[in-house]
C-alpha cells in the first residue's frame, strides 16, 4: 500500500470541521510557512519537490510560481482552478467535499508563498453543494485566525473567496476561467500575455489545480526533498486517479506515481480487474481528451517495457504509441465497448463545450461530431475516416486554447489504433449498428 499524503484522513468522522481537521495535524503547514519561512523559501520547497501541475498539463508548479511577475505596488492573485469537468475526472470534487480544509490550508500557504492578499477558488457551477462545504470551511478558518487580517500575528493578510462558474467546461481553461471570474463571457484569451504577467484584472496571477494546491500542504510539512523521494524520475509524489469504466472497483485512488498500469488495473489494492470477468479492450488514461490506447499499448510501451503511472512512462512513444497522464481520469473499457460510439460520445461533448470563439474549433468540433454520428449510425462512407483524420489535424495546434486539441486527439487516436472498427462500421453498417453489437475482429474485413 502506497503512502497517502492527501487522503490519509479522508474517512475520519467530522474531518470537514475545523476542530477534527486541526486535531489530525491540519494547518501545520500554514504555521510552519508563516512563522518560520520566507515566501521565497516556500517556493523553493515546492520547486525541490518536483510537483507537477495536477490539472492535466503536468507543468512544474514551482517553476510556474517562479514565473510570477512581481512589480512593486501591484496586487498579485492566486486562483484555484476547481472547474473540474473533464469526462472521466472526478478527483477534485471528492477532495473538496471530504477535505475542504485541506484546500483552504493549501490556498493559505500557497498565497503566502506568492505574496497574494486575495485569492479565489473558482468552482464548477454544478458543484454548488461543494461550494457550501468550502464556504463553511473558509468561515471556520476566518473564525480561527487562519484567514483575514494579520494571520497568526504575522502581519500577513489574506482574503479567500469561492466563486461558482456557470457550468462551462471551457472555463477550466485558465484564461477563460479568469475572464469568467472577472464577470465576462468565458472565452479564452490570446497568449501572450500569460497570466503570470497579466492575469486576473490584468494583474500577475497564478492558476493552479485543486490537487496541486492541496499537495503544497505535505510538501511544506515534510519538506520538498521528502516529497520528491516518492515517485519515479520527474514524476514525484502521489496522484489522485479517478478510475471509472468497466472496472471491478471504480473509484478514486491516491497512488504513488510509478505504480505499473497493469497493477493499477488488476491488483485488488486498486481497481481489482475488469468487471464481469471480461477482457480489457482500451484505456483512456488521463481524462477524455488524451489519446485512447489499446490494451497491448497501455500495459506495455512499444519497446516492451512495463508502462507505469507516471507522466513520462505514459507519454512514452509520443502520440503514436503513447498517451498522457493528464488529469488522472482513468477510463477502462472492456471488450464489448464500441470505440466508434465512444469516440462519438467524446466528440459530442467537445462540440457542445467549444466556446465558439476561434474558427477551427467552433466549426471543426461540430464537423467531427456529425461525421462520427453518421458512422455510428451506419451512414458512413469510405472517405469519412480520412476526412475525420484530416479535420482533426486541421484543428490541432491552430486554436486559441487547448480545447481544440482536446477535441482532436481522441479522434486521431481512435482512428490510429482502431481503424478496423471504423471500417467495419462503414462496410457492415447493419451488423455494426445492431444493439449490443461487438466488433468481431479484423478477420471480418478480410
Amino acid at each position, binding site marked *: 500500500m502506497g503512502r497517502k499524503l492527501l487522503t490519509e484522513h479522508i474517512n475520519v468522522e467530522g474531518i470537514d470541521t475545523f476542530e477534527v481537521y486541526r486535531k489530525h495535524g491540519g494547518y501545520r503547514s500554514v504555521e510552519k510557512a508563516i512563522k518560520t519561512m520566507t515566501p521565497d523559501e516556500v517556493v523553493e520547497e515546492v520547486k525541490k519537490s518536483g510537483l507537477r501541475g495536477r490539472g492535466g498539463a503536468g507543468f512544474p508548479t514551482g517553476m510556474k510560481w517562479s514565473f510570477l511577475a512581481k512589480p512593486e505596488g501591484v496586487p498579485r492573485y492566486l486562483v484555484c482552478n476547481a472547474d473540474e469537468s473533464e469526462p472521466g475526472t472526478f478527483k477534485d470534487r471528492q477532495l473538496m467535499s471530504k477535505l475542504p480544509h485541506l484546500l483552504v490550508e493549501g490556498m493559505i500557504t500557497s498565497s503566502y508563498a506568492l505574496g497574494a492578499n486575495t485569492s479565489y477558488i473558482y468552482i464548477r457551477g454544478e458543484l454548488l453543494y461543494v461550494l457550501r462545504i468550502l464556504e463553511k470551511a473558509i468561515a471556520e478558518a476566518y473564525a480561527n485566525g487562519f484567514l483575514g487580517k494579520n494571520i497568526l500575528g504575522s502581519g500577513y493578510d489574506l482574503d479567500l473567496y469561492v466563486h461558482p462558474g456557470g457550468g462551462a467546461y471551457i472555463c477550466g481553461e485558465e484564461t477563460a476561467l479568469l475572464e469568467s471570474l472577472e464577470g465576462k463571457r468565458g472565452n479564452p484569451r*490570446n497568449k501572450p500575455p500569460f497570466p503570470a504577467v497579466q492575469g486576473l484584472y490584468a494583474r500577475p496571477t497564478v492558476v493552479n489545480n485543486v490537487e496541486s494546491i492541496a499537495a503544497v500542504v505535505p510538501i511544506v510539512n515534510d519538506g520538498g526533498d521528502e516529497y520528491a523521494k516518492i515517485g519515479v524520475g520527474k514524476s514525484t509524489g502521489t496522484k489522485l486517479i479517478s478510475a471509472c469504466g468497466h472496472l471491478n472497483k471504480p473509484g478514486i485512488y491516491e497512488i504513488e506515481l510509478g505504480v505499473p498500469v497493469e497493477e493499477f488495473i488488476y491488483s485488488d489494492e486498486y481497481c481489482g480487474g475488469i468487471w464481469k470477468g471480461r477482457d480489457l479492450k482500451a484505456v483512456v488514461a488521463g481524462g477524455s481528451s488524451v489519446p485512447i490506447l489499446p490494451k497491448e499499448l497501455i500495459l506495455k510501451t512499444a519497446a516492451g517495457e512495463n508502462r507505469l503511472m507516471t507522466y513520462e512512462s505514459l507519454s512514452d512513444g509520443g502520440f503514436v504509441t503513447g498517451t498522457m497522464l493528464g488529469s488522472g481520469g482513468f477510463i477502462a473499457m472492456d471488450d464489448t465497448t464500441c470505440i466508434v460510439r465512444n469516440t462519438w460520445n467524446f466528440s459530442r461533448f467537445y462540440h457542445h463545450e467549444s466556446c465558439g470563439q476561434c474558427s477551427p474549433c467552433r466549426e471543426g468540433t461540430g464537423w467531427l461530431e456529425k461525421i462520427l454520428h453518421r458512422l455510428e449510425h451506419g451512414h458512413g462512407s469510405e472517405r469519412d475516416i480520412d476526412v475525420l483524420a*484530416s479535420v482533426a489535424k486541421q484543428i490541432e495546434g491552430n486554436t486559441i486554447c487547448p480545447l481544440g486539441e482536446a477535441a482532436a486527439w481522441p479522434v486521431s487516436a481512435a482512428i490510429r489504433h482502431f481503424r478496423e472498427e471504423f471500417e467495419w462500421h462503414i462496410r457492415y453498417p447493419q451488423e455494426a449498428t445492431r444493439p449490443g453489437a461487438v466488433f468481431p475482429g479484423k478477420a471480418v474485413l478480410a
Partner: protein
Amino acid sequence: MAKITFDGIEVEVPDGTTILNAARAIGGGIVPPAMCYYTPLKGSGGKCRACLVRVAAGSAKDPRPMPKLVASCVTPVQDGMVVENTTSEQVLNVRKGIVEMLLINHPLDCPVCDQAGECDLQNFAFEHGVSTTRYEEERRTFEKIDIGPLIQLHMTRCILCYRCVYTADQLTEQRVHGVLGRGDAAEIGTYIENIIDNEFSGNVIDVCPVGALTDKTFRFKQRVWFTKPVNAHRDCENPKCCGNVVLWYKGKDVLRVTARKDQYGEVKEWICNTCRFDKKETSDWTIEGPAHIDRSSVISANHYELPVLNQSIVADLPESSTRDLEQNPPMRLGN
C-alpha cells in the same frame, strides 16, 4: 525599435507592433489575411486564425522557433524575429484548412448575397481556399432578424469575428447586442428582441466582413460592382463623426453612403447614422472625386483602374500556394 525578417524581407517597426502590422508595413502579397482583426477596434483579433504564421525564430535572444503557428494579428514582434508566411508550406496548408472551416457553415450562395463583391470571406476563400468541399453534413442556418429599421442581421452568414461587438462597445454608449450561446450554436443577438438604436450603429455594417449585417436601405438595390464609389464630405453636426464618406452612385442616385476603408478593408474614421442613412442627395455633400478602391475587389475591376491583385513579391513560392490541399480528394457527387 525591433527588426524582424518577414518572408525574407527585413523591416524595422516600433516595439509592441504586431507581426501583422509589421507585414503591412512591407505591404504586397506577403501580408497575411485577417478576417477578425480590425486595427481601430481594441481587443479584436486572434479568433479567425486566418492570419496564422510560422515564427521560425522567436527573437535574437532566443532564436528557437515557436512550437505552434501564431496568430500574427495579436502576437507582438521581438527584435530578431524571423517569420514565415507565404514561404511556409505549413502555413499555406493550414490557411486552406481555415478557409474550409469558415465555409462549412457559411452558405455558398454568393450570387444572392448582398455582400458579394465586397465580401472579405469571398476574397479570402478565392485567394487562399480550395475549389472543392468535403463537407456533406447539414449546414447551420438561422432566420433573418431585423435589428431596427436600418440594419438586418442574418446569422447564417456570420463568421463570429466579434467586430460588431467591439464596435458597439467602443463607439456607443451602451451595447445591446452580443454573442449568445456557445460553439457553433453561438450567435450574435440581443437576447430579448431589441433594436440597436444609436447614432453610430450603422458602423457595424461597415466592419462586418461578410453579409451578416447589411444596410436595409441598400439591400438588393444594386450589385456593388455596378455602382460608382465617389469620395465626399460634409460638415457633420455630430462631433464624433468625421463626415468623410464614400457615396455609391448608380446614375445620378446615391444608393448608399459608407465610411472610407483602407486597402485592408478597415474603416479608420467612423461616420454617424445621419450621414449614412439620411443624406442621400448629391446636394448634401461636397464631392471630392472618384474613390480609390485599392483592395483586391471586383468593384475596382469595373471602373476606374485595373484591379490590384496581390502580386507576389517573393520568388520561389512553395508549390502549395497554387495547389489544392494534399489530403483533399475532390468529392464525387452522388458518392
